Structure formats: C-alpha cells, structure tokens
C-alpha cells in the first residue's frame, strides 16, 4: 500500500512535465505574441521588446519550456499579467465563491442520483423505469446554455424567486445567490449520473451472488440495498471522486453567467485576456488535484472492495 502510494505520487512528476509541455506548446509555440495584447494598441516596439524580455519570451524555446516546468514544479506562478495581482491571492479569493456553489450542488446531485437510480433499478423494465430513463436522456439533450438562460429568465426574472446574478461571501446571504446556479447544476448532472448509476446497479443485479441472496429468502429491497448497492459502490466511488478536482475549478459557465467571482470566472477571464500565468496555474493545480484524487479513489477502493490490494 505505501509502495503504491509513493509510486503514484512519483507519477506526478511525468504528469507535470506533460501538462507543462501541453501548456508550453499551446501558449509559447502556437499562440501569438501576448506583449502587444497586454500593452494595448499604442505600444512602441521598444516597450514590446522590454516586456517580452521581462516575461522571458525572448529566450530560446527550450529555455522557455524549462521556465514553464520550473514554475510548475515550484508552484510559483508569479503575478497575473492582466491584473498584476498575486495568483495565490486570486485563487484564495475565488475559491470560496466557487466552493459554496459547487460543493452543495455536487453533494445534493450525487445523493439524489443514487437514490433515483436505486428506485429505477428496483422497478427495472417497468413504466417508471422507462419514464425516468427517458427523462434522463431528454434532459441530457438540452443545451446547458439553454437551461441557464431559461431558468434565469423564468425563475429569477419572471417569478423573482432568486437573485438574478451577483454574489455576497457571507453566510447565509450567499445562499440566495448560489441557489439558482446550484439548481441548474443539479438538473444538468441528474441525467448522466442516474443513467450511469443505473447501468452499474443493473450490472450487479444479474450476478450469481444476488441469486444466492434471494435463495436465502431475503426480500428484494434488502437484496438491493445491502448486497447490490455495496458492490455497485465500487464503480460509483470512482465516478464521483474523480469529479471532485474539477469542482475546485468551479463551474465555468455558471459562474460567468451569474457573475459569481469564483475560480471559473477567473479562468475564463484569464483565457480571454491571454493571462498566461493564471491559465498555467489553473492547469497545473487541477492536474495535481486530478492525480491526488485518483490516488484517493484507489485508496477508497480498498475500503469498498476487500479483493483490491494495492501493490
């Protein structure tokens, strides 16, 4: 187990090299020169040259790549080019609004999805199963943007039940701001989640051990909630946990639409203004989170499934 964890942590090294390489190719090789963009239309050639020098863009490509790698490993991303703010300050400020939106929404949608998929699995093949499955597919077929527009227009603007947009960081005020985007998040997640969980549960229902449990005289609900669910938890955990690192990045679309000053909005702004250091920080941090959480998935596996031994 310890060996496994160490090996997986060491795997961070090649992955960070890889992420740095992708960022480097995208922003240092393919993308245009950021200097004129940052300085505006009236910049002189000298100003542009000085800025490029300062940003290290006049170095040879390999040296530029090593710069990217170095800052990725030291996690020293410097300041934003656009706002001149320290990047960690930006992240610290953006994390709270993002998490107040994503964590409750994620938790609620996961719980509701598991419950719904159990109901659907219990009534498999019957009318209610077909109906919920159709709702899931239909729900997944509508653009997320259309949901956002419609819900905001109807529930906030027309009915006045929620704030139209904006944010206040204090509890409980923020609730009225994150409630609507949270609901949209839940609606968007239910379709794919219920469909996936249903498949996973049904895969288990046809296993031999379920027949044994029935042969013991257990009722269908006990069979489902005790024997089947416990086994289905294994793929469900993987599916759920691996989404968590991306929660930290916030909900890009929702945040920008509802003017929530979270990490998603920060990322989107950075992308729009070619704010390279911020993009780099977000990419590297989220891939580190991704590796750590996939490690966490593996560790949780050993708890859920006694057959798994990490070596």
């Amino acid at each position, binding site marked *: 187990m310890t060996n496994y964890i160490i090996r997986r942590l060491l795997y961070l090294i090649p992955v960070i090299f*890889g992420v740095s390489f992708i960022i480097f190719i*995208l922003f240092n090789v393919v993308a245009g020169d950021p200097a004129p963009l940052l300085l505006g239309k009236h910049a002189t050639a000298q100003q542009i040259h000085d800025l490029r020098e300062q940003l290290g863009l006049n170095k040879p490509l390999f040296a530029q790549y090593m710069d990217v790698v170095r800052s990725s490993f030291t996690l020293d991303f410097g300041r934003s080019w656009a706002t001149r703010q320290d990047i960690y300050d930006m992240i610290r400020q953006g994390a709270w609004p993002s998490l107040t939106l994503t964590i409750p929404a994620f938790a609620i949608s996961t719980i509701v999805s598991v419950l719904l998929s159990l109901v659907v699995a219990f009534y498999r093949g019957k009318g209610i199963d077909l109906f919920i499955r159709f709702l899931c597919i239909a729900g997944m*077929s509508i653009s*997320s943007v259309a949901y956002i527009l419609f819900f905001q227009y109807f529930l906030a603007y027309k009915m006045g039940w929620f704030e139209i947009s904006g944010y206040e960081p204090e509890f409980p005020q923020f609730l009225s701001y994150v409630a609507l985007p949270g609901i949209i998040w839940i609606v968007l997640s239910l379709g794919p989640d219920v469909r996936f969980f249903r498949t996973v549960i049904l895969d288990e229902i046809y296993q031999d051990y379920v027949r044994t449990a029935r042969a013991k005289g257990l009722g269908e609900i006990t069979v489902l909630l005790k024997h089947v669910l416990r086994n289905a938890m294994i793929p469900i955990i993987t599916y759920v946990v691996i989404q968590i690192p991306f929660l930290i990045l916030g909900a890009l679309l929702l945040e920008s639409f509802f003017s929530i000053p979270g990490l998603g909005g920060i990322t989107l702004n950075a992308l729009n203004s070619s704010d390279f250091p911020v993009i780099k920080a977000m990419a590297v941090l*989220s*891939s580190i989170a991704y590796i750590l959480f996939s490690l966490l998935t593996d560790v949780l596996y050993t708890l859920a499934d006694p057959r798994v031994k990490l070596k």
Partner: protein
Amino acid sequence: MQDQDTKSLWGDAFSRLVRDRWALISLIIVLAYSLIALLASFGVGVPDWKTSMGAEYLPPGGSLWLGTDLFGRDVFAKVIHGTKIAMSVGLVTSLIAIPIGVVIGALAGYFGGWIDDIISWFITTFSSIPNIMLLISITLILGKGLTSVYLALGMTGWVGLARLIRGEVMKHKEREYVQAAGAIGGGHLRKLFIHILPNVTHLVIINTSLQFQTAIKSEVILSYLGLGVQGEPSWGTMIDDARMELARGVWWQLAGATVAMFIVVLAFNILGDALRDALDPKLKGK
C-alpha cells in the same frame, strides 16, 4: 437450415436495431438532419437566412414559422443553417478524434510494455486538465471560428475512446481466437488488424454517436462564449442572442435553436443506446 439464411454479427445487429421502433425513428431523424445539412451546404432547397424578411422581432406566424430576429431575418432559416454547422462539427470532429483514439488505444492495448506506458502517461496528462479549459484555450489560440472549433473538439475528443479501445484490445489479445491466429503462424499485424480490430469496431460505432452529440453540445457552448462560428448563424450564436432578447419577451430564437438541437441530440442518445444493445455481444442473451 438453408444456406442463404446465413447472417454475420453485423447483419444480425442491424436487423435487431431496425426492429426497435425508437431506434429506427432516431435513425431516420439523424438521416433527415444529415440531409438538411447537406442541402444547406449546397444552398439547395433551403430558405435564405441572410436577407431581411420584415420588421425586427416578428413573432412566429404566417410563413415565418419562427418569426424574425433583430435584423428581421428568418429565424427558421437560421435554424436550418445552424443544422449544417452542428452536423459538420459532429462529422469533422469525429473524423479527427476517432482515428486518433483507435490507433493510440490499439497500439497501447496490443503491444503493452513501454509503448503502453508512454501512451497511458499521455492519456493521463490529457485527462488531468479540465476539458473545457483545453477546449477554450485551443479555440482562442487558433483564432475564433469554425476551424478552431473543429480542431479543438477533434484534439480533445479522442481520449475517452483511446482508453476504451486500449482496455478492450488488451482483453481480446488474450482470447483464444487470437492465440489461435498465432498458432497458425499469424504475425502481429494480422492479429491486430484482421482479428482484434473488427471485434472492437462496434465500440467505435457507439462512440461515434456519442462524439457527435458531445461535439454539437460543445459547439453551442463555444459559440455562446463568442469563440465559435463567426458571421453566420449557429445554434450557439442564436442562444447567445437570446440572452438579450428574453427580457423583451422574444423567446423564438432560443426555442428554435434549443428544440432543433434537442431533437437531434435525443436521437443520437437513443440511437447510441440502441446500438449498444444491438452490437455489444456481452449483452446478448441477457
């Protein structure tokens, strides 16, 4: 049994597919959308979206089924043109993503060892960066527009398929029919291309249906963010327009684009499920 009754697994799957009423309807819808897209790209038999047909924001009615937009243009014509954009995004990104996914996945799964190590590292690296961030970055860097959307979606869409094919090829490699091909003296190329790949092709077909709808949905998001199609209507730009219009009670652009997209994505979803049921040998007899 008569000789002409013979049926390959493909033929078998196809007859099962068309027996499923919903799958058949979905297939027809997808074909109809493709036909509309094809006609629209040649400008044949489709209404003109460029010229003004009347006043701004005419509500639906009369010959203007979906009313007009800010410039008095026919919203229905814009929906039709958007169909062309959406289907082309689906097609082009599939053509980019699927070959990459199949080749990379098959190489990793079949040869294993260091080749697999490198490809797995590449796949992990790619999936560790949030997809939407990659999409937006690539589109921005290559310049706003349809070509960038194609490339961005194509270059990010292969990861899931590669992972799937890799696992499946690994499984098939150990099957006895592949061992048998080795025992008669068949080499790697024969084992991989003649034996294993035809047995994972069904996954590619299922995945194409998935890739299509993901691409259509992503185009809408990118266009909505102003990164996608420029200077011509797509479902995404129409929904983006609706942001300003809804408050004025103009709902038809949003409704037109959303419904058009809903129908085709739903059809792809149902078709994808039906394909999985019809093609996946694992589910046979369950």
